[in-house]
């Protein structure tokens, strides 16, 4: 059995972060927002504050743990929205072709031409700032790659005999797309979904860093980095730990995505042969 480093390492990292987020209320030492004691401001990492404290005296360790909840929620939910939109548009475009395909391709090209952060900003400007609008904004932004991929995968499956057989047996187009096409294109979509989650985490961090995502005092990793801008030389731990958290999460997701690609692709070929 080949040891798939990518897959296992990625899975371990990702699961660790997920657990940290889920168990944050129990693992954290303090309340991430309320427990602010200016007396403890900018304490270096030590026995009491594992990761040190920030300018307001809040425990960075607890804030990083709670931040995991926000970042993962954003990562997972937005990618889910992206996937649903992308697969729906791409698969239907590939399956039906014709004018619908032209419309979807036009839309996709448009989306790819607009910088995603700018688009997300525009959406958020319309909706009131907050977690929900961030989710909607990011969810509406990054579906183009999934759409392209779904369309291409659907085109390659479209002319297989079993699709035509399903049509001849009387199944509706919707049934065929959901039961015959989708399971056979799921592999690459799962891979791109996993990689997309990493991108979503980074996007959230960027937006929050710019002050446009999760607003302080809520502990988003991105806003923690933003707060620590002035203290990089005086109190580096304030930015190191949130930065490290982002790094580990995105790295884990990327490795997981790579690892999944390795097992899903050749297995598909083996199953088809």
């Amino acid at each position, binding site marked *: 059995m080949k040891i798939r480093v990518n897959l296992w390492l990625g899975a371990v990292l990702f699961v660790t972060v997920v657990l940290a987020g889920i168990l944050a209320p129990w693992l954290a030492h303090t309340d991430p927002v309320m427990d602010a004691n200016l007396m403890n401001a900018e304490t270096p990492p030590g026995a009491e504050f594992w990761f040190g404290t920030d300018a307001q005296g809040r425990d960075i360790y607890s804030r990083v743990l709670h931040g995991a909840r926000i970042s993962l929620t954003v990562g997972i939910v937005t990618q889910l929205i992206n996937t649903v939109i992308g697969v729906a548009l791409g698969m239907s475009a590939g399956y039906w072709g014709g004018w619908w395909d032209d419309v979807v391709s036009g839309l996709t090209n448009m989306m790819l031409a607009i910088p995603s952060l700018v688009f997300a900003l525009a959406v958020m400007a319309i909706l009131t700032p907050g977690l929900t609008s961030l989710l909607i904004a990011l969810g509406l932004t990054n579906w183009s790659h999934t759409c392209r991929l779904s369309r291409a995968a659907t085109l390659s499956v479209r002319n297989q005999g079993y699709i035509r057989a399903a049509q001849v*047996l009387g*199944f509706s187009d919707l049934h065929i797309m959901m039961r015959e096409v989708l399971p056979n294109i799921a592999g690459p979509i799962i891979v791109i979904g996993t990689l997309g989650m990493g991108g979503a985490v980074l996007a959230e961090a960027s937006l929050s860093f710019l002050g446009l995502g999760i607003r302080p005092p809520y502990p988003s990793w991105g806003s923690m980095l933003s707060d620590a801008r002035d203290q990089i030389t005086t109190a580096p731990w304030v930015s190191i730990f949130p930065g490290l958290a982002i790094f580990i999460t995105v790295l884990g997701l990327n490795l997981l995505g790579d690892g999944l690609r390795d097992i899903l692709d050749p297995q598909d070929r083996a199953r088809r042969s």
Partner: protein
Amino acid sequence: MTVPASSSPLLSVEGLSIHFEIGSGLFGKGGRTLRAVDGVDLTLARGECLGLVGESGCGKTTLASAIMGLATPTAGRILLDGEDIIGHGRMARARLAQIVFQDPYSSLNPRLTVRAMLEAPLRLHGVTGKSELDDRIAEMLRHVGLRPEHAQRFPHEFSGGQRQRLGIARAIILRPKVVVLDEPVSALDVSIRAQIINLLIELKETLALSYIMISHDLGVVEHMSDRVAVMYFGRIVETGDWERVFSAPRHPYTRGLIDAIPDPFRTRRGERITGEMPNPLAPPKGCAFHPRCPVHDERCVGAAQPELDEIEPAHAVRCFRATELA
């Protein structure tokens, strides 16, 4: 005058044409017409196997697609048991006509077990009781020479020949009236073909099926067919009993096809036909076959195209010179 029901054909294709507009200009003008199927008349009797023969580009696949509802005809009718099925929805058509595909490796969904694959169409068409489903599936597997245990497996666990059996099972599980066989053995290893050919013949007899068999392999067509129709350039050029068509072909194309088969005993018969099928977007004047025909004369290059005429009972040929060529 009433025609006795038993003598009316099961399937009757009348004047069927399937034309495609190619390369239409900006506003839909200036395009050319690809006449993939051009005025085809065909009949299939109950319990008969009609062999549909022709080379690539002759339109036989498009014709089959139209019968299956996968292509929309431009003109003509397809009557099954007297009813025109061209406008029929998928569900109605599914119980009337089914198809066995050429490639057993791409015609089965790799993610479905055999059971799932056979159960789904039954459920869709109203068979829902578990025991009835089990019975129908087990019965079908037995019919095609597989065992009930095979139902749990996935397609990749089967060989090419077994996969083709599964394709056949799927095609007949709804008990259709007509089964189109699209090159059913061409993609199989030579030593397996006999198994599938024997199975198809057996099923036709046991289950009273009617076949339209598309094939470029004349040996298989001769073995399996009761009647044969030869297609060239979108039209039927000869049709008749298998014995008449193979032992006394009248159309020069049919003769050329038969001659072209490599004969292991090296007896050669008539004239070889040369060249290749003309571009379908630029049909020749007069008879479409004349550029390649070794025996054409001035009638064949005129404006008129030959009609499909019956030259003897149950044997029709589309050729101006049919009666002259022995």
